[in-house]
C-alpha cells in the first residue's frame, strides 16, 4: 500500500526538525561546550543524561557531530533549509519550534518546561497531537491496521487517547462501539467536547475513567465483554509498563472461530530507529513522554506479552497487528 504522505514531505519535515533542534543549540553555545570533550565528562555535567545521550546520538547520525575515540567534535554540517515546505509541515512545526527553543535548558538543567502535567502546557500538547501531519500519520497507520474494516457491531477500545485526538480518528473511521480510556476525567470531558464540536459524538462511544492497563474493567464498565480492536497508538512511550498494557489488552480480545473474526491489538508506534521520528520523539519527550522505543524494544515487549504479531509497516511509524 502506498503512503498518502508524500516522501518529499517527510524529508522536508526531517530537515525542519533538525533545523529546529540544531539552531537553538547553536545559539545556546551547546556545540562549543561539548567540543573536544569526553562523553563521560559530559554526562556528569548535564542534568538530563538520558536526553543528552539520545540527543548526541541523533546529532551524530544526522552528521552534525562525530566521535574521535570517546571525544565529541562538531562537523562542518549546518542545518539545511528545505526549498519548499508544505503547509502541513509548517502546521506540524508550530509546537516543536516552541519546545526546542528550550531544548538546551532541558538537557542542561534536567527540567522539562513543557511537561504536559502542567495545565498551562495542555494546549501545547493538544496542538501537537492535533497537527494535520500527525493526524495523517495516525489515520494512515490505523487504516493499515484495519480500523476502517471494523464493523458496526464490533467494539474498539482506544487505549491511546491522547486528549481524544485518537478517539476522534476512530469515531470518523468506524461506526463500531468505541471505549475511550483515560485516567483523567478532565481529559475525557475534553475529548467528549471535541467529538461534540466535530459532530462525531454518538451513543455508542463511551468515555471511561481508568488507567489503560485496567482495560478489562474499563471495557466492562462500558457494558462490553470483549473487544475486536484495541488501539495502542503512540502509547508505549507514555506508560510505565508496556508489557502489562499489551497483556491486559490481549486478555479482553474477542476469540475467533466459527466465522467470527478474532480480536487484535493495533499497534502504531514511533520508533527511535527511524530518522524522521527522532526529532518528533525528542519533542514528545520534552512534553512528558519517554524517548520513543527502538524497534527491538517493541519486538521484545510483544514477545514478553506472549503475543503473536504481524508487521504491517515500518516507516515512519512501526505498525503491527498482535493477537493471542
Amino acid at each position: 500500500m502506498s503512503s498518502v504522505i508524500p516522501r518529499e514531505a517527510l524529508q522536508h519535515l526531517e530537515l525542519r526538525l533538525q533545523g529546529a533542534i540544531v539552531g537553538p543549540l547553536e545559539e545556546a553555545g551547546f556545540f562549543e561546550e561539548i567540543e573536544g570533550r569526553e562523553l563521560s565528562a559530559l554526562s556528569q555535567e548535564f542534568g538530563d543524561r538520558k536526553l543528552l545521550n539520545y540527543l548526541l546520538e541523533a546529532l551524530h547520525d544526522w552528521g552534525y557531530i562525530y566521535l574521535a575515540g570517546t571525544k565529541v567534535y562538531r562537523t562542518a554540517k549546518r542545518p539545511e533549509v528545505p526549498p519548499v515546505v508544505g503547509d502541513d509541515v509548517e502546521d506540524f512545526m508550530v509546537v516543536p519550534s516552541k519546545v526546542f527553543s528550550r531544548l538546551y535548558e532541558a538537557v542542561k538543567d534536567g527540567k522539562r518546561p513543557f511537561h504536559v502535567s502542567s495545565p498551562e502546557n495542555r494546549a501545547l500538547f493538544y496542538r501537537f497531537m492535533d497537527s494535520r501531519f500527525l493526524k495523517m500519520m495516525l489515520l494512515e497507520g490505523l487504516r493499515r491496521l484495519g480500523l476502517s474494516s471494523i464493523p458496526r457491531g464490533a467494539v474498539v477500545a482506544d487505549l491511546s487517547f491522547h486528549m481524544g485526538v485518537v478517539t476522534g480518528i476512530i469515531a470518523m473511521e468506524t461506526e463500531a462501539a468505541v471505549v475511550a480510556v483515560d485516567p483523567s476525567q478532565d481529559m475525557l470531558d475534553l475529548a467528549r467536547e471535541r467529538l461534540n464540536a466535530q459532530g462525531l459524538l454518538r451513543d455508542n462511544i463511551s468515555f471511561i475513567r481508568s488507567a489503560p492497563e485496567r482495560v478489562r474493567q474499563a471495557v466492562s464498565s462500558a457494558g462490553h465483554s470483549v473487544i475486536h480492536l484495541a488501539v495502542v497508538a503512540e502509547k508505549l512511550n507514555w506508560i510505565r509498563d508496556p508489557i502489562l498494557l499489551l497483556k491486559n489488552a490481549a486478555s479482553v480480545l474477542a476469540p475467533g472461530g466459527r466465522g467470527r473474526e478474532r480480536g487484535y491489538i493495533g499497534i502504531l508506534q514511533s520508533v527511535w530507529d527511524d530518522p524522521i521520528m527522532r526529532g518528533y520523539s525528542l519533542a514528545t519527550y520534552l512534553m512528558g513522554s519517554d524517548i520513543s522505543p527502538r524497534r527491538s524494544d517493541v519486538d521484545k515487549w510483544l514477545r514478553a506479552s506472549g503475543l503473536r504479531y504481524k508487521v504491517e509497516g515500518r516507516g515512519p511509524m512501526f505498525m503491527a497487528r498482535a493477537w493471542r
Partner: protein
Amino acid sequence: MVLVTCPICGKRHDVSPSPGWNFVLCDVDHGVTVFVDGRGNVREVHGTKLAERGARLRFVPGMDDLAPTWIDVDRIRLVLDGTIPPSEEDEAAVRVLLRLGIVRYEEVE
C-alpha cells in the same frame, strides 16, 4: 452533573463537574462560565455575555496559534464578540478552548 443558576436570567443548567473552566450556553446572547476545583466543587459562577460590549470570554494573547486545527478561530472570535449566534458545535468548541486555557474568562468593568 451540578446544577447552576444563570446570574443573568435565572435559568438553571446542569454543568459537568470536571475540574477547570466550563461553559454552557444559556441564551443566544449569553452563557454561564463555571470554575470547578480539583474536588469537583463549584467555586465560581459568572454570567457571560456574548456581546460587543461587556464580553467576558477572550482569547489569551499569544495562545491563539495553539487552537486546535479543527476549530475555526475566526468564527469563534465572532461568537465571543456577539456578532453571530453560536451553534451547538461552537459552544462545544468554546468549552474546549476554555479547558485548554486558550480562551479565558475576564472581568470587564
